């Protein structure tokens, strides 16, 4: 990895750009419990950034801070070179940050297609009255958005379940539908919260391929949390390691793998 002022080149030859998002000295408390303690790191354009750590390290809380669901008591979030003011989650989504959830958060009462269509809500422009009349603007918009969504459905190979209610799907497919919903938003930054939790080896391979393809096809920047170390090391360009709310490592997979603090955290503490 060659360091450059405004980016670097990865081992497999991808160009990584400048800093897209920067977390500065984030501290998050729930009542007396400190979930995140003074953590700083950045995410660069086009990179796959992993956050790892034992259970309860505060990884999900960090993702929740990025997506605007939790508001840290201290610290700043910088996005595209500007300090992000306190925002509602849906405003963060409108800025081009989409995510998936650790415990699948699909809309169970809707079909796969409708779920993915909700991913495009931030791109919908027609107002309520146009929609009530339907003919004209609303229908045209619906068709245009459907076309984009179908591309995603094709991309993730879920055509055969397009009209199935998500409630009936097996776990692995649900995860994929959730990814589709996030992708449908055409995000600049995609957050994945344990995208491979609970999957078998084959499903993990599929999901890894999709993640790489997404990064490759759409040049989407990806930040992910994952437990499976092997997967993380294969997928990601740089890794942040957290333990008990603190950052104990940050760097390329190789650097992190050889970091003594990280080794201690994983070996010394008998987490799962």
């Amino acid at each position: 990895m060659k360091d450059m002022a405004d980016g670097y080149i990865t081992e497999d030859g991808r160009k990584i750009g400048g800093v897209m998002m920067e977390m500065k000295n984030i501290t998050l408390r729930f009542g007396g419990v400190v979930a995140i303690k003074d953590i700083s790191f950045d995410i660069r354009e086009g990179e796959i950034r992993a956050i790892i750590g034992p259970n309860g390290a505060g990884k999900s809380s960090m993702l929740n801070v990025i997506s605007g669901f939790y508001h840290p008591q201290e610290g700043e979030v910088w996005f595209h070179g500007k300090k992000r003011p306190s925002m509602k989650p849906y405003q963060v989504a409108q800025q081009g940050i989409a995510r998936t959830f650790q415990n699948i958060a699909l809309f169970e009462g809707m079909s796969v297609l409708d779920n993915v269509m909700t991913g495009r809500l931030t791109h919908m422009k027609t107002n309520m009255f146009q929609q009530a009349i339907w003919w004209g603007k609303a229908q045209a918009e619906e068709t245009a958005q459907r076309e984009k969504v179908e591309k995603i459905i094709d991309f993730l190979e879920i055509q055969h379940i397009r009209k199935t209610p998500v409630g009936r799907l097996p776990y692995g497919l649900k995860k994929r539908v959730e990814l589709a919903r996030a992708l449908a938003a055409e995000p600049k930054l995609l957050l994945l919260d344990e995208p491979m939790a609970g999957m078998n080896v084959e499903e993990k391979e599929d999901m890894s391929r999709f993640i790489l393809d997404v990064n490759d096809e759409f040049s989407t920047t990806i930040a992910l949390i994952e437990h499976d170390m092997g997967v993380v090391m294969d997928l990601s360009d740089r890794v942040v390691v957290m333990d008990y709310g603190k950052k104990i490592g940050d760097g390329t997979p190789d650097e992190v793998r050889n970091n003594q603090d990280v080794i201690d955290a994983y070996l010394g503490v008998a987490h799962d």
Partner: protein
Amino acid sequence: MPDQFLFGVEVVLNGLMAGVLYALVALGFVLIFKASGIFNYAQGVMALFAALTLVGIMEGQVPFAHLINAIFGTEVHYFGWNVPALAAILLTMVLMIFFAWAVNHFVMRHLVNQEPIILFMATIGLAYFLEGVGDLMWGSEIKKLDVGLPQGASIWVEENTAFLGTDNFFGFFIDKLDMVAALVAAVLVIALVAFAQYTKQGRAMRAVADDHQAALSVGISLNFIWVLVWSLAGFVALVAGIMWGAKSGVQFSLSLIALKALPVLMLGGFTSIPGAIVGGLIIGVGEKLFEFTIGPMIGGATENWFAYVLALLFLVFRPQGLFGEKIIERV
């Protein structure tokens, strides 16, 4: 002291007494909610049903008399005996326990793991059902309930507070029944707390309230606990029914008290027994005071809605209620 102020104090006192009765109904809600997460809309109708049954048994009414007469063309109404109050109360309680079992066996058992809102709607259905059954069993006319509780304003209080007025002639008007009710409510709360703290069943009940799965894993029978809490709720309903029935007769409006208990709960939180008491008192006092001060200016009868609007405003600022903990949402 000016009379106006004293009137106010009297209103507050009366409000407190009414609040105690609200709290009594609310207590039934809390019991069931804590143990099973069910918001039992039928609690008020249970009180009505219990009171109807009590009167029916005491007066020796033939259950379903109208129905029987309509079907068989007979003219039966009364057995012709009277049952003493205490025995009738016991019999009613037996019926309420049977009802608790039936609710669990035929309804709630089949709705395990449903969303709370579905359970809530099921209890609305239950309320309709029970109201219909009550009317079919005992008839829908207004009945007087007399189990020997003291009635009328307390002369003692009136005489002993007379000195407060400017001409020593004021005297608070407080219903004796209300005072009994307050006493009963206090006893009931203490008894319930003691039951929950010191008996095996009580501890099991609390365990279930904390964590269903954990309770199951230590061998507590959920079905038993649910029948137990529904029975307890039935008992509370019976007590509330007796109090309200004795105060204003046994009639349909009794079930509307249940609706009053809802804002009480919203204030106090659905899971807190002290919350129910405090909430009841706040609502009782609040609505009486509001009616006393603002009511005349805007047409009166503000008790109809005051409690709800108060609870609504309150909730907007503190969604978890008075005693509830702040909810940390997770994804």
